[in-house]
Every structure is written in structure tokens, then in C-alpha cells.
């Protein structure tokens, strides 16, 4: 089971939610559609732990930076970057919403593989 993923759970009530929530930028890579995350080096990585994450006010700037690093019309372009909320759980990043957790860590199903 991918790390950091607990199905059907929301951020634990014990977390100081407002303090712990940060923002990261993500999109889907044009050529293969995989979710990628904007890094501090200005690149895009499929690993969410590589994502740059900032607090509150800096989020808009992060998104603008992510969008500007994506201006190149190449196969590595990223489609429509947007911000997501993440919590930093001891160096590993975990998205707040279930949808973004599934995007980051994969489907939660058992596959009928015969």
C-alpha cells in the first residue's frame, strides 16, 4: 500500500489543521497524463514528496511560477497547473483531499487480474 495513504480518512482531528496545511502546485503532464508536482528547482516531478510547498500567502506566487515554467510548448508541458492543499507529515507530503491522495498514490482498488 503506498505510503501515507489511509483510505477514507480525512486529516486527523488531532492535527493542528490550519497550521499544518500548505499548498503545492500540480498538473497532468501533457504527453502521458501523469500527475506531476512543481518542485523548488522549478521542475516537475511525479513524486509528490519532491513538491515545493508553501504557506498561505505565498501560494499564488508559487502557482504563477509553476504556470510560467510551463509556458514552453513541448511534450513535457504540464496541463493547467493548480494548487492543492498538503500536510507535511514528517518530511512526507500528504494531500488533504481524498481525490488528490488518489492522484498522488494511485487507485485504492484490488485489481481483477485473473
Amino acid at each position, binding site marked *: 500500500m503506498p505510503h501515507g495513504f489511509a483510505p477514507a480518512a480525512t486529516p486527523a482531528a488531532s492535527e493542528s489543521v490550519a497550521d499544518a496545511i500548505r499548498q503545492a502546485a500540480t498538473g497532468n503532464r*501533457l*504527453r*502521458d*497524463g501523469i500527475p506531476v508536482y512543481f518542485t523548488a528547482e522549478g521542475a516537475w516531478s511525479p513524486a509528490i514528496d519532491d513538491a515545493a510547498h508553501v504557506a498561505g500567502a505565498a501560494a499564488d506566487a508559487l502557482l504563477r511560477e509553476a504556470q510560467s515554467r510551463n509556458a514552453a*510548448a513541448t511534450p513535457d508541458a504540464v*496541463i493547467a497547473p493548480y494548487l492543492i492543499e498538503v500536510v507535511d507529515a514528517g518530511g512526507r507530503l500528504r494531500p488533504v483531499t481524498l481525490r488528490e491522495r488518489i492522484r498522488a498514490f494511485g*487507485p485504492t*482498488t484490488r*485489481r*481483477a487480474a485473473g
Partner: protein
Amino acid sequence: MYRYDEFDRRFLERRVAQYRDQVRRRLDGRLSEDEFRPLRLQNGLYLQLHAYMLRIAIPYGTLSSAKLRMLAHVARRYDRGYGHFTTRQNIQFNWIKLEQTPDILAELATVELHSIQTSGNDIRNTTADPFAGVAADEIEDPRPYCELIRQWSTLHPEFSFLPRKFKIAVSAAATDRAAVRVHDIGLYLRRNAAGEVGFEVLIGGGLGRTPMIAKTLRQFLPKQHLLSYLEAALRVYNEFGRRDNLFKSRIKILVQSLGIEKMREAVEAEWAAMDKGALELSPEAIADVARHFAPPLYAPPGDDDEESLDRASRANPAFARWLERNVAAHKAPGHAIATISLKPPGRSPGDASAEQMELVADLADAYSLGEIRVSYEQNLVLPNIRRAALPEVWQRLDAAGLGTANIGLASDIIACPGLDFCSLANARSIPIAERLSAHLAARDREIGDFHIKISGCINACGHHHVGHIGILGVDKNGEEFYQITIGGSADENAALGAIVGPAVSSEQVTNAVDNLIGVYLRLRSDGERFPDTYRRVGLAPFKEALYAAH
């Protein structure tokens, strides 16, 4: 089945070339995402949560073994080794790379497969009874007409930018196995009093945010007018369908707001003004297409076919259960229609691995005259099996995890991909299906015919509105909740389910379903199917069972 001629092949080549150029222009930036999106959608390519999803058309649910092997090849080479069969008889692959899609479409084209118009605001794959051409209760094979609709609607220049998608389904049997009444246009092939073949044309059915059962537009349309009449209906829709609100754009909303009488007037007026000659189906034209679907020469039954079948049943109770549940009557003596369950309890419904697909293709060649069907319930069908061969077929299916004897039972659940895959979803559906099917499987026989359908969002791709029990996933403050409906039905007595009460949490779903089924088992009279019990006792006992305890 229909075999392409030179025209069809070259047409598909042009389409693949066109698409390849569009992808190239997208990848080098000449096309923006906004400009490219409608183009890729018209080729069935979605951008989903994890990757692109490619939806490949399986016209009227009919496959050859060669086609099925190609789908297995695509699964293996371009995806993660499996595919998902959908509630519109298509197949979806979830892990596709855009840059590989031109090659995928080129490979599919070599076996006459494509993804044309499996998305977009156009006329989608026309679906049909998966038992078409072989069912004992059928008037006439509807698939020649489906093929004609397919050709007429392919890259139709007038109807490629409709207000919204358009779905047509066709059935020619007493039992509706194609959910005709919840389609934009539904067609029941019928014979009139004079013995002539024609169609009852229904309009304005659909699921989603505002589910509706279709109404009769025309009681009897002589078969030669099928395409011209469809053209008239589509033109009225193209002209008057709403375009201001995405959620009110389907033709069912137009039918509802005009009323069926005014809708009929509009369609009939357009049809009367049309020059129908160009689209009229002459007897020769119908015969030409019908030739592709001509029944094969069925071997006559052997003298001790039934006896050997009987012996096999008595020797193997698991086979006997499969025979009883998964095998339907064929119109040719000594033959049978076998449904292959893609719903092993506890697993993702409707999935098949590449190996499983290849096995089914082999079985089709060995036992089913090379043909396979897909049902909207997300199962596969081998439509032409000699009854004496059923035991061997089952053995080979069973060895591959394809022998579950649960067709139409509680563990034969329909579920959309849901939030595990789909960017439109609000909640997950597959884990619910996995849990429920595992839980209910042991009681399948006790419960009897029972249809549970699960959707991960209001778009209702899991058909929850027309399940005996329907389950709709919703997002309540970031948590997954499930709204339960009951009393729906997708067959010729189509009905929309009623909401039982407030949504329940994910953990409560199994218990809730147990309670509802418990009420049914308690209240049903001998052999009474669920829809009849529900009609007799109403919603109250079910509501009480779910919510009185709280």
C-alpha cells in the same frame, strides 16, 4: 458480424492519419489544450486522474476473436495488462499515454476497431441487446440496423457539435437487455399487425442529474424510414436543445420542457419537410447489411447432448449452478448463450486481464463461432455454444477466474470506475462494489435476481438510478457518503429508484444493503422478484429498516 470493405478500411485510415496530425500539433504547441480537447474527445481520449483514458468502441457490443485479441494486446503493450468493460458496451483503458495513442489507433484499425465518437457532443456508440441474433425471444436481429445507424452517424457533419452527447440503444426481444428506456433515443424493433417490421421510437430517456424514462415518440416507424426519422429528431435537438446550461442540455430536458406532443409535432414536421429519399433503406440495402449478420449454420444437436449435460451437472454442482445461472436459451436447437461473469466477488467489476481476454477469444474460436458480446452489465457473452460443450467451456473459464455463477444476482454488481480513476467522480465506487460483492456472494442464491448498481457521481455511469438498489457516492465535507435508492429497473418495465433517506457513510453501506435485502426477503411472496415486491409494499418498510434504528 459486419466486415469492413475497402471503403470502411480507407475511411478509418484517414481518421487515424487525421488524429495523428492533431496529436502532433498538440505536442508541438500549435494546438492549445482548449482547441485539442474536443478533438481528442471525438476520439474517445479523456484526461483522468492518473493518465489518459482511452475508450474504444465496440459497436452494438459485438466482437470477433481477432478484435478481442487486439484489445488484449493493447492492454499488455500500452496499459497495465487489463481493460474495463463499460455500461455502454465499450472498453476503457486507464493508463494511456497521449503520445502513444496514434499508434494504438493504428493498431486497432487493423482489426476494424476504433474510438470514434466514444466521447464528445456527438452521436455515441449505438448499443444493443447482447443476445442479438441468437436470443430465443427475439423478433429479428437488430444489429443490421445498428450498423446502419453507426455508418450514418460516423463523422456526421451536421451532428458533431450537438448541445450534448447522444446515446441510442436498440432491442428486438420481449425482454429488454439493452436498457432502451433510459437512452436519448430508444428503439424497440417490432412487428405490426400486418407483420411488417418497424420500430417503436422512444425519446428523452436518460440517467444523470435529472433521470427520466423515455416516452414514445412514434408507436410504429416502418423500418425503411429509420435513418431519415433519426435525422429529423437529431436536427430538432441540434436546433432547440439548450446550450446555456451544461446540466440541461440533453434531449430529455427538451422533451420535458416541450412535452412529448410538441416534441412529436416538431420531429414529424421536420421529417415531413425532409427529402427522405437519400436516407431511405431499400429492402436491398437492408438485405446487404443483414448478410453480414446472417446466422451461421448451426450443427444439429446430438442425440445424447442433453444426457451428457445432465451427467456433467450431477457430477459437478459448481457447474450445475453456472449452467442454471449463466446460460440462456438460444434460438437454435442444441445451442446456448453463455454469459461470462466479470464479477468475481471481492474484485473490480467489469475488468478483464489480457490473459483472460485471450482465453475468451480462444473459447470463442473453439466453441462460439468466433464471436463474443459485451453486455451493459459489464460482462462478456459467448453467444453460440453447443450445449454439449458447456461443461468444457465452463471448466476452462473457471480455471481462469471467469466461472462465477452470479449473473443477475446480488454479487453481479455494476459499478463505474469512480474516484479511483475518474476525474468527474465525487466518491469511490469500486471498493464499495468489492466489499458488497464479497459480502453478498454467499447469499446470492438465497436472494435471487437482484441488481445493485453503483455510481461515483451524479453522472450515473454506474446506472444507479435503475438499480433494484442504487448507490450514489457523494462528497459531504470532504468525506465519502452514499445515497441509497431503491426500486429502480432498467428493463422493459423501466423505473427510477426512490431515495430511501439521508446518505450513509462508507462504513455503513454494507449494513444498509443488508437491511434492505432483509426487508425484501421478509416480505416477498414465493418467487416474487424484487421489483414486484417493491411495487406491492412500497417504500415505507425499506425506509423504516434503514432509518428507524437511528
